[in-house]
Structures are given as C-alpha cells and as structure tokens.
C-alpha cells in the first residue's frame, strides 16, 4: 500500500453495499417478526442510499445525488414510519409463520442467486458500466423479495416484500443505466407512497371484513 487511491476503494465499496443489500434480503426472508422486518427494510433503504451516493461519486452523475436523497427520504424515513404506525394501529407486531420452513426458503434463495447471476452474466458482458457486478445482485434481490411475498401468509409482510422488491429494482437501475431520469424516479417515489396509503386503507378494510389479516381469507373471494 504505497499510496491511497480512492477509486478502486469506491468500487469495492459498491460491491460491498450490493452484497449487504442481498444479505438483508436474505435476512428478511428468514425473519418472522414484522417489526424486525420493518427495521430491516429501513436498513436496506439506507444501504441503497449509500450505494447510490457511491455510484454518483464514482460516475460523476450529479442527478444520482438527488435520487439518493429521495431514497433516503422515502425508503428510510417515511415508509418505515408509516409501516410502523400501521402495524401499531393494526396491532400485528408478533411473529408470523411462513408457508414454507425457513431453511428450505433459503435453499431456494441460493438457487435464485445462482440463477440470476447466470442470467446477468451475458448482460454484464455487454454493459460497459463499471457497476456491472451489481446487476446480478440486484436481480437476485428482486427475486428474493418476490419469494418473500410468496411465502408469507399475512398481508403486511407481503407489502414489505413488495417495497423491498422496489429497492432491488432501483439498484438494478443505478447499476445498469446510471439511474433513471429524474422524472421517472420522482414518479416512482410518489407511486410507492400513494400505494402505501392505499395498502394501509385496504388493510383496515380487510380486517373489518374478515377480522384478520390472513390472506387465506381472500381465497374465499373467488367465484364458486
């Protein structure tokens, strides 16, 4: 280590953040407690923010700084707070059993990681961006969040899964194309917020109708 060169360090940091994002996706997959899920979601948002800041610095794209700020605002502060209040109001802080046992879920998760890396391999060969390593990870965390939505039977963890999925998409966007245009990002952020409100209202409606947030009750809604 003769002299300090920050560029490769920032590059490594980017890989590290991406991996941490994946780690949190796995942690969410193996978590039963809704409250911890929300905390993990907030952490994931924070790491996403840091990773966007890092790539903004690395690629000298100033608009990425704005989207980092936006992410920080929505994913780390507003959404977790909203979710927090929601579960307090709904009184569902406790453990939720998963549909498939957790080691099996994680095993499938590992399969998904391998799958998404194989999928990303040809694309990242094309991509000339320096962020291409993270594309596979981003794809993997999207799939993992999807899987989390599949394996939960309560509504709130499913929504958290949905929001985490959006995190993965965001990472994919920054790593593949240096982020989306600002307008799109603002729109997405607004959509997510509005979606959150709508979900919140729905939860109350669901609970009033069925006295529970268990989505198995929704199965009755099909036509006979």
């Amino acid at each position, binding site marked *: 280590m003769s002299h300090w060169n920050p560029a490769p360090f920032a590059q490594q940091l980017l890989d590290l953040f991406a991996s941490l994002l994946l780690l949190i996706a796995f942690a969410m997959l193996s978590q039963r407690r809704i409250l911890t899920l929300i905390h993990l979601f907030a952490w994931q948002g924070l790491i996403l923010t840091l990773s966007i800041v890092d790539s903004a610095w690395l690629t000298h794209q100033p608009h990425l700084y704005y989207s980092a700020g936006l992410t920080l605002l929505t994913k780390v502060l507003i959404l977790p707070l909203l979710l927090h209040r929601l579960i307090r109001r709904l009184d569902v802080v406790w453990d939720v059993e998963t549909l498939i*046992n957790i080691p099996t879920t994680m095993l499938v998760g*590992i399969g998904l990681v*391998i799958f998404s*890396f*194989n999928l990303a*391999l040809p694309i990242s060969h094309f991509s000339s961006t320096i962020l291409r390593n993270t594309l596979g990870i981003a794809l993997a965390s999207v799939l993992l969040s999807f899987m989390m939505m599949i394996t939960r039977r309560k509504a709130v963890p499913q929504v958290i899964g949905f929001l985490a999925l959006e995190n993965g998409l965001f990472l994919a966007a920054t790593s593949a194309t240096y982020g989306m245009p600002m307008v799109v990002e603002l729109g997405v952020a607004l959509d997510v917020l509005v979606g959150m409100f709508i979900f919140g209202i729905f939860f109350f409606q669901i609970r009033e109708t069925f006295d529970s947030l268990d989505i198995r009750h929704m199965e009755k809604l099909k036509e006979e």
Partner: protein
Amino acid sequence: MTLLPLDLVGLILTGWGGLGLLGLVLPARLGRSLLFPLITGLSVLMAGAGLWALQGGAQTLVLPIGLPGMPFHLRLDVLSAFFLTLLGLAGSGISAYATGYFRRMAETQAGDFQRLTLLYAFFLASMGMVLVADDAYFFMVAWEGMALSSYFLVTTDHEIPAIREAGFLYLLMAHLGAIALLLCFGLLQSGAGGDYAFATLRHHSLSSFWSSVTFFLALIGFGAKAGLLPLHSWLPEAHPAAPSPVSALMSGIMLKMALYGLLRVLFDLLGQPLWWWGALLVGLGSLTALYGVLFAAVQSDIKRLLAWSSVENMGLILSGLGLTLLFHGAGQETVAALALAAVLYHALNHAFFKGLLFLGAGSVLHATAERNMAKLGGLIRVMPWAAGLSLVGILSLAGLPPFNGFVSEWLLLQAYLLRPDLPQPWLNMVLPLGAAVLALVGALAGFAMVKFYGIIFLGQARGLVPGEVHDIGFWERFGMGWMALGCVLLGLFPSSVILQLDTVTHALVGQGLGASAARHGWLWVTPVAASRASYSPLILFAVILVSVGLTFLGVRRFFHGRWRRAPAWDCGYPFQTARMQDSADGFGQPIKQIFESFFGLSREIPSPFDPHPHYHSEVRDPLWALCYLPLVRGVARLVKVVGGLQQGRISTYLLFSFTTLLALLALVTGTRP
C-alpha cells in the same frame, strides 16, 4: 520360467476356488479351522501380489477355456492391481474373523456351513476374476458369478421370509444392472468387428451420442451395484440380511467392484469423456451421499444403519469420480489426479472401516442375538475388545483426524477447493455447493456414528442380562484388529499410500501426486504445493499425544489422584432406570424432526393417559414410493395385458407360434437385398 504377478493372482484365484470345493467335502469342523485360515493366507498373498503389480506394467494372458473362439482374456494392469490389493487386504481381515465367527454354525448346522464355505470362497474368487477379466464375456461371467454367489450368501438364513424378500430384491436389481452392462459392452463393441476383448474395445471410438448412451448404460449397470440413487433400494435390505462377515465383504469390497467397473469403462474403454457426465455424476453422487447419511442417522437396526452409511460413502466416492471426469474433460490433469487419488483412497478406507464396523456389528449380533439397537446398550463393559476396536471404526467413519476417513475426505475437499476455473461458468458457481454437501455429510456421519456407538456400547444395558454376553474370541480379535490397524495406518501414513496410488492416477489421467508428495517427504501430504495445503497426520497424532500426556502429567503432578465410585448423579434424580436413556429412535429424533417432510414418516404417539404407552415410528424411503411402486404397478398392468393372451387352449398357442413364424419369414425375405 519366472513367476509374474498375474500368474500368482491366477494361482490364488484357483486356490480360492479349490478351497471352496474342498469345503464341500471336508467335515464342517475341520473345514472351519483349516480352510478359513487358508483363505485368509491366500488373501494376504493376494494383497502382496496386488502391491507387486501396482509397481507398473501390464501383463496379459489368454486362457484356452470359455466358448469356442472366445477364450478368456486375462489382464493385470495397475488399476486391477489396486483393487486386487484392496480385495486382499480387506478380505484377509474379514476371512480371519469369519474363522471364529462361524464356529457355532459349523458345529450345529454342518451342511449349511459346507455350502457357505463354497459360496464364500467362490465369492472372493469371482471378485478377483472381475478384476483381471480382459474381455466383456469373461467379465460378465465373473460379474454374474459374483452376483449369484453373494445372492446365495445373503439368503443363508432363508427360513426368514424378510431375508428371502431382501434376497429377491437384490437378485432383481443385480440382473437389471447386468442387462444394462451387457448392452453397454454391446455398444462399445458395435461395429468394431472381431471379438469382445477389451483390447479391441479400447481402440474403437464411438460418436458422442453413442458414447453418452454407453455412459448411461454403464452408470445404470454399475450404479445399481454401487447403490447410486435411485438404484440404491436393494442395498439397505440385502447387506444387513447376510451373515456379518459376508455383509463386510459386500459393503467393504463388492461395492468397490462397481467403482472398478466405472473406472475401467470410463477411463480405459470409452475414450475422451464429455464434461456433463462428470457434472451428472457429481450431482447424483452428492445426492446419494446426503440421502444415505440421513437415512443412516434415523435407523435403529445396527446393520441397516451401516448399510445406509455404505450408500453414503459410495455417494461420496462417485461424486469424487464425477469431479475427476470433470477436470479430466477440461484438461486439468493435476486436479483430476487429486480427485482420483481421493476416490481411490476413500474406496480403500471404506473397505477397512466399514468392514471393521460390520464385523463389530457381527460380534454384537453373535453375542446378544439382537439387531435392534433399542434393546442393546452398555456392551463396552462386557465386550471391551469389540467395543475398543469398533471405536476406531466409528472415528474413522466419522472422518476425524488422525484416522483414515479424514484423509480421503480432506483430499476430496482439496479437490473442490483447489480447482482452477472450469470453462462452464455455471459449473463454477454450482461446484461449491458440492463442497457444502460434502461438509454436511461428514458432520451428519459424525451424528450417526455417535448414535451407533453410544447406543450399542455405552450407557446401561437395555433389557439384556449382561452375564450371558461374552466377548469375542481370538480369531475375531485378530480379524477386527487387522482392520483397525489398517484404519490407523492408512490414516497416519497417507503420503506412502498416495505414492502407491501414483501409478494408477498416471495410467488413468496421465498425472500423479507422487512428485509433489515425494518432494516434501513422507511425513507430509501436499497435493499441489505447500503454500496451498498440507497435512501431516503423524505430526498431528504426535502432538495430540504430547498435549494430552502433558495435561495428564500436569494434573497428576500438582493434584492428588483421589477418586471414588458413587451412584450416577443425574441432577439428583434417584429413581433412574436404563429405560430413561435415549433409545435409538430418540437419538435420531432431531433428524426426523428437521427432515420430517423429506422422510416418508409414519408415527404413532401414545396419549399422555395411556397406561401402557406404545410409541412407534417408521421411516420409509420416499424414492421407493416414487420410483419403484409405479414401476411395479406398470409391470403388473403389462402382465395383465399379456395374461389376456393366455387362452389355455393348445390350438391358440399353436396359432401364436404360426403367426410368429410367418412374420419372421416375411421379415427375413423382405430385408434380403
């Protein structure tokens, strides 16, 4: 004329056969005390001949027997020599043990014993013949001889229906395998013209499609013998059914014949392998290993536990073989040699420790007439010899240093870790999972072995009267001691073993570990380079001894050595009985709990108010229901259709023959140019 190794091997094989025939005519008592030691002696000689032939070179011999125009070809190369050594080394320990083990049988069931002597000797001889066969015809004769003699040995206690069933299943699977092998050799020869000698097959190459079909047929044929998933189901039934020394022969040696066959076909006869054969073998082998060890951990029958563990070990061996193929196909011969050395080493190790454990199980069975672990316990106090020697076996099987099981698992893990990148990117990503499975299997084997030893030999006796139980006699001690010594020596001197394996790896993949092993001296195992990985069991063993010894001396030096006996404390609970210990079912319960959805588990749990509670749980092989039962149903349906043809009238049958004749005549004339 000088004596060559092949002549010696031929003489020994003839000697075995002759001793077997002699056993049929000699009185049983004399037969036992004379013939079995002679068989043992010949086995030792066989090991010597094998080691001699392992030094290099191949010899061939053509015997003027067999079919007209198809004489028996014999050939002894280094690959055969290695397996002959294995046969001799393990066979001598097992045969010595058998001398003592069959004493009661020779005295009470003289006729049965005479038959057994014949079959036992023929079994050994036919395995030897498989190894020296150099044409497909002789190979199949020897292979079928091995299957048949072992079938009759399995059904020694044919009065018991369960054993007859196990024997039937074994025979069925053996024949399915044999058919696949016949087709495999047929494909290998197709279009080559001439005879079925391996020399002809070796120089005949196939298109990649047909060589893949041949690979599959070989995999089915030899896999059925090796217990590869899903062809394993006969193994945990048949191996325990046989008398214990025969179980030891089957698990320790006969399974390795399947490995030999695969090596012979894949590396010698078939030519350049395709990469996905290796990938398939790695996957199937790893699955087999995991499957076997999980079932081993939940068994409560002593010998069935060991048989499932054989499935596990064959899985490990075959996954290593897959790795070898993969690396060999990619042209990375050094790592291929490493994986191959691990495979051969593990085959040798497994022969020793599994043989030893089956012999130990035989001693328990002989002394207590009880195969159910739930009724055993505390045998270390009445059978110290059997217990002490079995301890070596379980430590080896659990893969603990400095015993032999550890060395080969270490080599195999190194092959996983030290590999260079393969051309297929997804394989690079998937292969670490193989290493993970290997690590998991090793740890689970530890679980199964603690269960095996702890329930049978430790604790308090569950129901047996200790006074009636006797320890093993001289010959049993000798046989088990031989195997245990093998486990220890193979564990302590790995580099010497690897040097011996060098010629084999050179012959098969063109590389060896010998140079690197020789560079660092006999004390060290360094597969690639000292900075990559090295291991020295002898030093490890020495420092363990020093460390433990110093601890002992230190404690003795500074503190008093007073001790006294008192009833066991057990947290102060005074009313303890032997029934409060874990039973075999109880010990395996966590595994059942964790993998509940995987096992076909049926349980009856008593209600808490039941005055005579009865707990019953049964673990079934899910593959049995998945693969075999549909097959059975399909065959039954087919039989029904064929049964429809059976009218019972003689003229109908004549009509069938007539139409067949007409059709054949039409076919023959129609295809004539």
